[in-house]
């Protein structure tokens, strides 16, 4: 009896402890004037020079003071910490003139010395900054400070869009890299709880002011909650816990629209594309006849013409997508080619073309000249409902041609292994995120020698004449000094891609956002970060 009551006592004690423990460690309540939204995962680093993932990039965007800012709305480079800047005609010398009276968040003054030190640190191989690669040959870059407010950067080789590169270089106090704790941007990293939240607070010494002279940012801080679950995010958004949703999935758009129509925004096509491609790598572990199909232009164009893109946009994205035929989206005003001639849907013409290429029908099944039934798999990543729907719709479309398609969804690491290391796949359906409208940022995808040349990575020599032509055109646009010449080269690449269909473009997903009615100052843009690119001008209604 005594043992039993002692047992009960000890159990109660443990229970009480457990209760206490579970009550601790909750997310901090919201501070007044603080903006809040979610990020999908923990930022890998707070050191602005070492940023190599999306969420760290967001934190850098919100906290870093930069010489030049790429305005996501006007898509033009604007001076930020620099009062003015100039680029020499040969593109190899940059001169920045800093504003007067600049300060860091801790009150210390910001001079050319700090700017030069920060730039040099980014260029150092020891830092391993991904942005150093944008300078092409970082070791040859020199930085001088003729006086306290002037910084001169000499480049060994001209870099296209060098202004945008400085949007990614944070100016930190010389000799004191602080991992975001001392910054010249609108906010400063204040608190970080792993897997819970990142808290930023207002920089009291931020140099920008609004038109009436009020110091920016308006908000007292920002809380970024680490949350990967759309259901919870939307519940909390509806309850007012979050002020915006960056990247709303299409199926939740309709639901939110019904409840609060003023809160949702559909900005039309984004810069991103969803595409399908066939494995054309000669070394792939596929049977020779399959490689023959995938390397045949007729086959690829046939598949492309049999897909009903309008259905993909309407059903898989609930209307929040636009059929795509090229890698430049209509949202990219400067580079979009209106006169592109693309192969349109026409199942009858496709059947004729396939017959001409030696295919024939055995009952309802398509077979090649040697009698092999046309069977292949489409690989995509698990967890993306829209892509799974598209793959299933395409499976049905190709069934009308007699092709037997299997849809396989894998988790990302296994998928990447097949795509980039073993080339053990037949067709793949994935999306590409474009953060930079300039096609020069896509060199890695179009150059045949690149490991990101998805359908045939790391070619020692272009395998076909048209790939060689794409290489020539992309190299031309990278080195040309004339805008018209660059546009012509990129148009040429788009036409080759439309004729050869190495990537079968499917849709441009629309940019979908949700904004709380309480949030003022939002000007949604298509480029990332679409809702908070002007974070210093955002404020909550009733706070202030």
């Amino acid at each position: 009896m005594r043992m039993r009551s002692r047992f009960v006592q000890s159990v109660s004690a443990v229970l009480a402890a457990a209760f206490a423990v579970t009550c601790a460690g909750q997310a901090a309540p919201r501070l007044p004037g603080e903006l809040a939204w979610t990020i999908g995962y923990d930022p890998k680093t707070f050191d602005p020079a070492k940023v190599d993932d999306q969420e760290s990039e967001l934190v850098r965007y919100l906290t870093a003071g930069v010489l030049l800012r790429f305005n996501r709305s006007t898509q033009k480079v604007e001076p930020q910490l620099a009062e003015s800047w100039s680029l020499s005609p040969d593109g190899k010398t940059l001169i920045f003139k800093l504003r007067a009276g600049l300060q860091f968040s801790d009150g210390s003054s910001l001079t050319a010395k700090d700017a030069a030190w920060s730039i040099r640190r980014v260029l150092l191989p020891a830092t391993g900054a991904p942005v150093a690669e944008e300078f092409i040959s970082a070791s040859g870059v020199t930085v001088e400070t003729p006086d306290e407010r002037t910084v001169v950067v000499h480049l060994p080789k001209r870099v296209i869009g060098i202004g945008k590169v400085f949007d990614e270089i944070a100016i930190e106090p010389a000799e004191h890299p602080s991992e975001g704790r001392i910054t010249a941007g609108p906010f400063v990293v204040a608190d970080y709880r792993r897997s819970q939240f990142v808290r930023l607070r207002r920089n009291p010494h931020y140099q920008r002011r609004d038109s009436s002279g009020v110091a920016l940012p308006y908000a007292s801080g920002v809380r970024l909650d680490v949350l990967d679950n759309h259901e919870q995010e939307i519940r909390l958004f509806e309850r007012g816990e979050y002020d915006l949703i960056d990247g709303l999935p299409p199926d939740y758009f309709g639901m939110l629209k019904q409840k609060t129509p003023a809160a949702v925004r559909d900005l039309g096509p984004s810069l991103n594309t969803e595409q399908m491609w066939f494995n054309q790598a000669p070394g792939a572990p596929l049977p020779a006849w399959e490689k023959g199909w995938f390397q045949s232009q007729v086959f690829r164009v046939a598949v492309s013409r049999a897909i009903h893109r309008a259905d993909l946009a309407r059903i898989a994205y609930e209307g929040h997508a636009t059929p795509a035929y090229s890698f430049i989206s209509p949202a990219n005003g400067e580079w979009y080619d209106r006169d592109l001639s693309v192969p349109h849907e026409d199942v009858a013409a496709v059947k004729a073309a396939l017959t001409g290429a030696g295919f024939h029908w055995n009952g309802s099944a398509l077979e090649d000249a040697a009698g092999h039934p046309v069977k292949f798999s489409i690989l995509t990543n698990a967890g993306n409902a829209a892509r799974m729907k598209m793959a299933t719709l395409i499976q049905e479309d190709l069934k009308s041609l007699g092709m037997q398609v299997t849809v396989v969804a894998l988790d990302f690491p296994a998928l990447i292994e097949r795509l980039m290391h073993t080339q053990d796949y037949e067709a793949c359906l994935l999306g590409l995120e474009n953060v930079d409208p300039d096609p020069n940022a896509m060199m890695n995808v179009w150059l045949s020698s690149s490991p990101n040349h998805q359908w045939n990575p790391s070619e020692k020599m272009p395998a076909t004449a048209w790939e060689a032509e794409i290489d020539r055109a992309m190299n031309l646009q990278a080195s040309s000094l004339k805008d018209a010449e660059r546009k012509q080269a990129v148009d040429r690449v788009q036409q080759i891609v439309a004729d050869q269909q190495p990537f079968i473009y499917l849709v441009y997903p629309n940019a979908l956002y949700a904004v709380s009615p309480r949030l003022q100052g939002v000007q949604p843009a298509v480029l990332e970060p679409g809702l908070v690119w002007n974070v210093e001008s955002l404020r909550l209604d009733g706070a202030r």
Partner: protein
Amino acid sequence: MRGRLLASWLLLGLVLIAVAVVAAPGSSYSNQDREQPLAGASMHHLAGTDTLGRDRLVRVAAAFLLSLAGAIAAAAVTTAAAAGVGTLSAFSPATLGRLGMLVCDVFLALPWLFMLMMVRSALPLTTSPAHSAAITFLVLAALGWPACARAVYRGALDLRNSEWMLQARAGGLRGKQIARHVLPNLVPLLMPQFLICIPAFIIAEANLGALGLGIGEPLPSWGGMLLELDNSSMLLQTSWVYLPIALLILILLLLEAIAVEV
């Protein structure tokens, strides 16, 4: 007894209705009526359509037949394996028994997620959806037994040490005859396990879809339809999404009624 009979007839009736729905001329589980995605009930589609415009009734019926057969078979295999391992361990010499439970514990703790990924990478990508389904249920059956084996081991040990068993063994009862006496007494432990495994395997099959296993498109997956319930926008759009879960509860109740011990 009457309840049992009634439940069996009901279950048979449901199976026959499902077969009739699937085999009816003109009904297809993969045909996409793209003009009417997520439509409500109509003359053409008695239970409406899913997000890709496929007839929900035919898909639920086909999923019912496919997943139920697979899950019941897999649950039976797993329960039998647990019974076998648990009983053998209990009736062997003590060290073998402890070894058996050691293997059981190790098995329980290993991260089988990765083995499943390896299974997927060993299969050719063009494995047909039906083969993929069969392999998935096989794998689930192979992985599900340790959870119950320990409880069976405990129960079997108790039986082994119970008076009547001691007397029987002293009287010369051996091997197969022991099994004939032991197994019926283990049924109260095994039956709930069997009944729990069925919905667990149905859902697990759908979760394996995230690894590339599971029932491939366009074959309907019951687990996949159940997982649709986690999307609040679906729940608010049409109430026909509740058809699969309603059917599942009905089936589980019928099975429970059939398996009751009096």
